[in-house]
């Protein structure tokens, strides 16, 4: 039984990693062909990272993901802290909206944001033109609409994570702080937030990942902003090139590095804490 289980585990890992291995192996392939191996080469990496379009798309992706994850982090944390003491009706409305954000399929969210932003900006633009005829200011789809779209889902993620953490926290710590006459703000900064940090960080990370990997919402709301998944999808359409594999492998390497760094940091902090006896 034991062996069977371990064998199963190994099989699942194989299933998970074979496709990734294929991508990585072919990214080092010397030949133009995606289908046969002809030797080792780094040329596709050079080509990928000297291709201005790929670099630009990568930069956009990172910026969008960082911005939307940061917004999600602030909005979500603030909301999770605020909602327990908010008026019931507001709390309910907010819960409905968070659940909706989590449940509405990405493609529908993308479509409705596309329609909304187009409608709203056309309306605003006509007002701008009417009120300030000399102004060239015009609003439309783009970087900001993409950030807004991604932060809708991200905020819900952060809210849920922080809320769960709050629920499992010992609230007496916060009460104790209040009993010791710490002003509320101080309690938040010195007691609540540090205790919530892991959940906030996890939320940020998830929101970042979601945004960075998202294709479908960006497909609709990107306007002229171009993220990496959008670029890769478009370039796959007109013939594959090992450049795509090299790009993907570079991303993989970056992810693994980030995860490893995060793991080391967390592990260190964890061991420090237990030494000092802080739960």
């Amino acid at each position, binding site marked *: 039984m034991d062996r069977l289980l371990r064998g199963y*585990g190994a099989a*699942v890992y194989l299933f998970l990693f074979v*496709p990734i291995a294929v991508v990585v192996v072919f990214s080092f392939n010397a030949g133009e062909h*995606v289908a046969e191996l002809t030797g080792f080469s780094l040329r596709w990496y050079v080509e990928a990272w000297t291709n201005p379009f790929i670099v630009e798309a990568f930069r956009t992706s990172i910026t969008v993901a960082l911005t939307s994850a940061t917004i999600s982090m602030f909005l979500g944390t603030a909301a999770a802290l605020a909602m327990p003491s908010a008026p019931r009706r507001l709390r309910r409305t907010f819960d409905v909206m968070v659940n909706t954000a989590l*449940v509405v399929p990405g493609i529908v969210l993308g479509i409705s944001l596309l329609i*909304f932003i187009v409608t709203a900006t056309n309306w605003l633009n006509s007002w701008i033109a009417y009120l300030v005829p000399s102004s060239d200011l015009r609003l439309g789809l783009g970087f900001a609409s993409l950030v*807004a779209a991604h932060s809708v889902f991200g905020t819900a993620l952060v809210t849920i994570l922080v809320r769960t953490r709050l629920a499992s926290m010992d609230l007496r710590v916060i009460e104790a702080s209040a009993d010791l006459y710490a002003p509320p703000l101080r309690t938040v900064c010195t007691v609540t937030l540090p205790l919530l940090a892991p959940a906030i960080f996890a939320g940020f990370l998830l929101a970042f990942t979601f945004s960075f990997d998202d294709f479908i919402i960006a497909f609709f709301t990107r306007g002229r902003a171009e993220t990496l998944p959008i670029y890769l*999808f478009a370039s796959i359409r007109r013939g594959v090139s090992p450049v795509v594999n090299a790009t993907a492998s570079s991303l993989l390497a970056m992810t693994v590095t980030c995860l490893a760094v995060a793991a080391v940091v967390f592990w260190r902090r964890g061991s420090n804490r237990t030494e000092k006896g802080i739960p």
Partner: protein
Amino acid sequence: MYRVMGAPAVVWYLLFLAAPLIVLLVVSLGRRSPNGGYQPGLTLEQYGQLGTRWTAFANTVELGLVGTVVCLMVAYPMAYVLATRGGRYKTILLALVVVPFWTSLLIRTYAWVFLLGNSGIPALLRDLGIAEGVRLLNTPFAVVLGIVYNYLPLMILPIFVSLDRIDQGIRQASKDLGAGPARTFLRITLPLSAPGIISGVLLVFVPVLGEYLIPVLLGGGQIYFLGNALADLFFQSRNWPFGAAVATAFIALVMVLIGFYRKAASRLAPGTEQEGML
């Protein structure tokens, strides 16, 4: 004093979630203008045509369900292995499950196009003399495989968490009282891991319903999901009102399915509903 801190999030949601959904509803009542796009109107015409996308609705629900169930069947034993046999390396092993999730969904799925294509697994089967002329790519099988592959970590994680929480003492007690492994599993482990299963299924099923890339890349246009129908309506026919109507119906469908699911789940495993989505 916390009260007002919730305001930005509420405003944000009113602006970028509630308002867009309302506009979606309004547009779904309009008409397509001759060169594509939207013409204001107040008609239910678009909803009358929903029947023309019936196959897309049916495919989405059917393959979404199959994909989620298969995902669960693959994920549960894996989560069990990690929770019970992980030992010291539990965290690292778990992280390994999540790593693929952090690489581009597009590329991961694309790798399967190569693996399932003629020069991939079918060639291997042919060379080994196992089977000739197997067709894997552009079949429902490929789409289900793509779903399982891409969403497996989302299923494994919550199940792992709930399994990991189970006090070994309870299982030991069950054994001590003379229950065999099968009985212990069925009466103790499985029920206690129900919350994990319930949130895992929800975490997978909901995004799968909205899939676009997997059917496009692995279904080769032969498997038509709602996501594909919607993308076509916006990017091929440029029929915004009908697209909005399909999207609205889609939301209704998801809500109804989730409503049923929550009810069923709370009956099967009472006391889990407060765990909500996660």
